């Protein structure tokens, strides 16, 4: 199964090269959004479907290429002071909001200092290191940090640090502002219409500041609740692009063999979703390090990738994924080795006590994956009982630490201080959320290293600290590292330039064009 799809990807890798032909303007793209987003005001709502649709309406100061280097967007240039404490951004001067008002440095200050500080947890995590934000003139903004913060330059993507219009929101109740029903951004597409349950329509921003962009006249996001119906919508030609996660994995090989169909897993580099197995470090067999190591040896992660994920994605070496910075490549991988797993279990004296496993309630692939893991574990003598929940139940069980093993996946956001340390820091242990240090891992040295590394300066110093922390984590196995997920985007090959950045799944239609 892996081979044909890998070929398809290689082939469209070629297709995705800068096209020889001149881009053509015109045409509307029909695509799918699943599930229906709760609203479209990025910054107020950060869930995946909102990011994917509204990433075309709103913009951030920067974009990132697929290696996560910053690219200009609303800011054309930027400088970092030698001590890593002051960052100066120079803004474009010809930008207007969708309602015609000019975009200025005041909007940046308002968005960051007022709007996001109040509403946005992911921006708050960065802003706690920021002492002041000032507009020195209409098109210059200076951020002053209280201490150096390594990943600061990675925080300006549209979904994390959305620019919202000051003249619309200032002095209002943000969440109940009338304008939330008609979002106003600076992006290449304007909000046109939302028929709840049916479609969200975006149209070209005729006054967009980048010459000639966007090429498309509009984008229609169809809302189709059933996975099989979404596949049919692509098959019968109603939609041309199936973004990540919109069809079940077992439909992917069939769809990718259709004529004029390309598939890519690019555009996720910034998020780099990392599937993990929570293991409860507090009680039961999973509290023993040897048990957790045994689980790592028992699982056949390559099999899961090749069969359940169509060969997409990468088996991670350890706690830091391949797209994360500062990965320590010298660690000994946890290969599939049932014999070693049995030895570890014997050594700890595992008595066959039953452990519960919660699959992620996100569809068929995850259910099957749980079955595969259950089978792997039972091969080495671990007694597993799978318990199905819905999303609400899953949230609650994890938030109250009521599990032994549980699937999840987390975004890595390009830097360990943004997306990785949160899983292991002991001051991030708190009931009520399924996204913090749910496993209950506590290690003083790890806390020290992560905290120091986040604000260490310069980069070499950070690298050293992160390499040491990875060695400890690799030995302790606080959680199981399953797979760096490769989510396929399926599209007609004559849609060109669909993914042009490391956040491409969310801002892709800016550069896209249709070849007739």
């Amino acid at each position, binding site marked *: 199964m892996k081979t044909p799809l890998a070929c398809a990807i290689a082939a469209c890798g070629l297709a995705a090269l800068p096209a020889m032909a001149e881009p053509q303007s015109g045409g509307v793209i029909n695509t799918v959004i699943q599930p229906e987003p709760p609203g479209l005001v990025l910054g107020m709502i950060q869930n995946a479907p909102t990011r994917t649709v509204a990433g075309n309406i709103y913009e951030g100061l920067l974009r990132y290429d697929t290696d996560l280097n910053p690219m200009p967007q609303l800011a054309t240039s930027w400088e970092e002071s030698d001590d890593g404490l002051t960052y100066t951004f120079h803004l474009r001067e010809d930008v207007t909001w969708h309602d015609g008002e000019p975009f200025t440095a005041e909007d940046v200050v308002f968005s960051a200092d007022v709007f996001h500080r109040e509403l946005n947890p*992911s921006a708050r995590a960065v802003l706690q290191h920021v002492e002041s934000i000032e507009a020195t003139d209409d098109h210059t903004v200076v951020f002053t940090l209280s201490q150096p913060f390594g990943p600061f330059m990675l925080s300006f993507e549209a979904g994390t640090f959305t620019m919202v219009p000051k003249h619309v929101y200032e002095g209002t109740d943000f969440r109940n502002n009338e304008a939330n029903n008609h979002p106003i951004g600076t992006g290449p597409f304007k909000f046109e219409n939302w028929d709840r349950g049916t*479609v969200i329509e975006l149209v070209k921003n005729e006054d967009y500041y980048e010459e000639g962009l966007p090429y498309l006249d509009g984008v229609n996001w169809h809302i*189709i609740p059933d996975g099989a119906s979404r596949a049919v919508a692509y098959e019968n030609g109603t939609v041309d692009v199936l973004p990540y996660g919109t069809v079940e994995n077992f439909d992917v090989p069939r769809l990718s063999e259709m004529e004029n169909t390309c598939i890519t897993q690019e555009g996720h580099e910034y998020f780099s979703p990392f599937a993990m197995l929570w293991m409860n470090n507090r009680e039961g067999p999973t509290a023993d390090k040897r048990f957790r190591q045994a689980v790592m040896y028992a699982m056949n992660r390559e099999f899961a990738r090749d069969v359940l994920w169509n060969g997409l994605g990468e088996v991670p070496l350890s706690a830091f994924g391949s797209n994360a910075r500062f990965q320590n490549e010298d660690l000994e991988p946890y290969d599939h080795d049932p014999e070693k797993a049995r030895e570890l279990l014997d050594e700890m004296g595992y008595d066959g006590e039953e452990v519960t496993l919660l699959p992620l309630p996100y569809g068929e692939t995850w259910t099957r994956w749980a079955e595969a893991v259950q089978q792997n574990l039972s091969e080495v003598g671990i007694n597993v009982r799978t318990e199905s929940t819905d999303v609400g139940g899953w949230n609650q069980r994890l938030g109250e630490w009521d599990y032994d093993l549980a699937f999840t996946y987390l975004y890595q956001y390009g830097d360990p201080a943004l997306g990785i340390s949160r899983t292991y820091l002991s001051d991030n242990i708190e009931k009520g959320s399924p996204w913090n240090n749910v496993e209950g891992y506590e290690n003083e040295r790890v806390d020290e290293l992560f905290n120091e590394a986040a604000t260490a300066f310069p980069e070499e110093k950070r690298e050293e600290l992160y390499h040491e922390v990875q060695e400890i984590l690799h030995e302790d196995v606080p959680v199981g590292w399953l797979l760096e997920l490769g989510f396929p985007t399926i599209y007609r090959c004559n849609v060109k330039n669909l993914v042009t950045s490391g956040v491409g799944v969310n801002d892709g239609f800016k550069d896209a064009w249709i070849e007739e």
Partner: protein
Amino acid sequence: MVYARLIAMRLFKAVIVLFMIIVFNFFLIQMAPGDPAAILAGEAGATDQEFLRQLREQFGLDQPLYVQLWRYVSGIATLDFGYSYRQQMPVLDLILARLPATLLLTGTAFVLSLALGIFAGSMAAARVKKVSGSLIMALALVFYATPLFWVALMAVLLFSVYLDWLPAYGMFTVGAHYTGWAHVLDVLNHLILPASTLALFFMAIYTRMTRASMLEASQQDYVKTARAKGLKDRVIQRRHILRNALLPIITLAGLQAGQMVGGAILTETVFAWPGIGRLMYEALMQRDYNLLLGIFFFSAALVIVFNIFTDLVYRLADPRIKGAS
């Protein structure tokens, strides 16, 4: 006069029943694990305690349960159904926006299944020992026993993917922006598959019930009398047998009509029909309490209304039913 008193009595009882339903549903929902704030935060993939606290405060979930109940009940008394946590809109607006789509779908299916079911059932009753009669019953059995979503998927495969005659999903052609008659035709075109899928199951039930009920009625003495006085077979079938066989069918039709608001979850999901059933399912998954309670309320109210209505129709169909029931 009798009718007016009857209706007044029934309406009075209905209010009490509705109130009990509201309170019962309110506590039932609280028993489901997880709360809407956690789910919303979970969807965002990143959260801190501050964010959860803000959401809970905004939704009023930080209040004791009896305060929440009081707020909800007193809200409903003024037709304020609260605010949908996830969709960020007033519940009443959401429900009213989705109601027409659902009523169009379930209403069409209702009429289709009732008409075709009674027709096929009478045919089968008239051809009781013939091949054609058995064929009708065999088909009815197949439709009755086949799961709805499977029929729906197969219908999409056949009529949309292979034959390309009908649209596979949705209520209108996205991006076409039709108006006037073009829009009506477009919607009708989209309605055919989901409405017939939904109608099949009930049609099968009506067919079976009509046949059984008519066969029973045809054994009655007045049928013999009618035959003896030389009436034509067709007239006997229609006037004497069918009319007397109608009561159980009306009962069932009343039940089906009561389900019109919430009864099409599967069909609406497979065909991406923007109706209430889907809204309810999503609200359940997201623990969108207010929205869910609002839909429960409307469904319950509709069931009650149709029960009253069914009772009235009984009296029309069979004048022997009188007095309080």
